């Protein structure tokens, strides 16, 4: 009985970043023009939003800095336009560019926060439903079905108007963004839950999970340390696409007047306010925030689409 030892050739262990730049994902990114374009656009938009206090000619929240004789100035390249109001001003003399930069901050914050909240809820619900199956699964998933069968806008309008009615006035302004985040998350956790549940049901049966069960690993650790990391790829794709969707939902709500108030305007609020002046000739008030919203959402969605294809082994 001779035994031939088999050893792998010694390799320098790779760091996480080293692995990333070696990976198929990076290769696919480098070769996808839409993905690169979207990433650049998104980076610019996000950086500009982060640097809003530095870049903006004006603090749009500071009512004292608004001068009424600057109201409804057109963009600088048009007759009557003047610096520093590159994209013009609104009826209160607020600089459009500054409003957009700060508004993008709010939109991105609400989008991100609702993705984080719905991810946390959805991943936990999906893991639990997929791992335990049976009635736990039935209850969680039927609740999700019911939520998805109601139009999201109605849910959000209901939640935010009820919350606005219930919140004491001094909390209303601070609370509204949190209410928006929760309203959007209430709807979008279901999608993460479905993705994670389906993947969990596949992973749960795999032998590595059973091997871990055999050494007495408790269910919670099995789910978090073994199963969850193996479900993250589709979750990541869903999260990217949902980020775009969340920004849009927030914009819609704000446009309908149940979202961010005009003194804390998101892109949607700016569009709503500007919309009123569209026919009086001050088209710039509504156009530029709309363009910004488009760039933001399209870039996020393009990245999400690319990611979905790049991570789908069947399309490679």
């Amino acid at each position, binding site marked *: *009985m001779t035994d031939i030892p088999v050893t792998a050739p010694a390799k320098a262990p790779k760091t996480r970043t080293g692995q990333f730049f070696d990976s198929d994902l990076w290769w696919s990114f480098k070769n996808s023009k839409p993905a690169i374009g979207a990433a650049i656009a998104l980076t610019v938009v996000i950086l500009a939003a982060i640097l809003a206090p530095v870049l903006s000619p004006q603090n749009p929240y500071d009512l004292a800095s608004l001068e009424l004789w600057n109201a409804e100035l057109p963009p600088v390249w048009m007759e009557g336009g003047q610096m520093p109001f590159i994209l013009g001003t609104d009826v209160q003399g607020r600089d459009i560019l500054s409003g957009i930069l700060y508004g993008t901050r709010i939109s991105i914050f609400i989008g991100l926060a609702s993705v984080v909240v719905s991810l946390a809820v959805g991943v936990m619900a999906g893991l639990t439903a997929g791992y335990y199956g049976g009635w736990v699964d039935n209850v969680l998933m039927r609740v999700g079905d019911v939520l998805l069968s109601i139009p999201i806008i109605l849910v959000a309008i209901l939640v935010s108007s009820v919350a606005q009615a219930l919140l004491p006035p001094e909390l209303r302004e601070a609370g509204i963004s949190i209410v928006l985040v929760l309203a959007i998350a209430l709807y979008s956790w279901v999608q993460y839950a479905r993705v994670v549940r389906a993947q969990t049901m596949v992973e749960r049966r795999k032998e590595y999970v059973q091997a871990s069960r055999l050494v007495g690993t408790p269910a919670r650790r099995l789910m978090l340390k073994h199963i969850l990391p193996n479900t993250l790829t589709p979750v990541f794709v869903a999260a990217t696409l949902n980020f775009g969707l969340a920004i849009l939902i927030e914009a819609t709500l704000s446009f309908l007047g149940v979202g961010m108030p005009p003194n804390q305007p998101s892109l949607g609020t700016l569009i709503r306010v500007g919309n009123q002046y569209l026919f009086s000739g001050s088209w710039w008030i509504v156009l530029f925030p709309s363009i910004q919203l488009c760039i933001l959402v399209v870039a996020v969605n393009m990245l999400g689409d690319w990611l979905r294809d790049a991570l789908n082994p069947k399309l490679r």
Partner: protein
Amino acid sequence: MTAQSPILTVSNASKEFDVSAPWLNRVLERKPKLFVKAVDDVSFTVPRGSCFSIVGESGCGKSTVARLVTGLYATTAGDIRFSAGSGGEPVRVQMIFQDPHSSLNPRWRVGDIIAEPIREMKLRASEAETRERVEELLSTVGLAADDARNYPHEFSGGQRQRISIARALASEPELLVCDEPTSALDVSVQAQILNLMRRLQQELGLTYLFISHDLSVVRHMSDTIAVMYLGRIVEMGPAESLFNAPQHPYSRLLLGTIPDIHAPHRDRALQSGEPPSPLDPPLGCAFHPRCALANERCGRDLPELLSVGAATVRCHAVEEGRAQETSVSEAV
């Protein structure tokens, strides 16, 4: 192998799986509940330090027996008992799985995979000792200490199976359940893994419950062999007697399918025939639709287990003394 006290006693174990359609479909389509009897009234004992093997075609319930023994499934009926371990504590059971690709978490480093049992069961006091133990285990199974830092996809099938073995050994088990540990490997690699497993059995005094569909693999490992067909054990006995004088027509059919270098062109007609669906097993002896010796009684009554020399056989023809008259291959 000296006759020792059994480390494992399985008595009349059965396992049914509920494979019914979802409740709503069942109600709408008026379908009854549907069960697969994957394991039916199986009894055996495994002496300490021996290797007990189960052979049979795909779907006959081998893996289900393995999972019943390790506790991954609960029995529907019957009883699985372990004797006290060598130190008086409960016997530790571990399992080596069939598929080296799905049995290792692709996102964990090999070192963490092997260390998991040690950490979960708190077998070492410190992280340094754990790491030391992992290196020791890697060298036990013929891998390098450096391999701990790599991910499973960087290894070949045979190497992954060594990693699985190292992980199983990490919890210091006395009984290792091996569910077709070599069936996914090349023949040359199979021999290496089997050699390693035999060496480990001798060095560590392990007991094996070894499962395979390949009799030639089992032959070199086993002290006792049980042949399963459609959830039941149809013949069980010492390895040598089973190979030299198989009693049950199905055992003889299986033996006929072992490639024989002395007579490579032997008639292969015996391999024909598919096992019936376990959803709808034949009445009487489940083997009768394929059996050359079947008579009318076989399609009606389930044969009892019968002692023939050192073996136990479940067959009417053996009981009636018809089995030895005709060679099975002629009768087909």
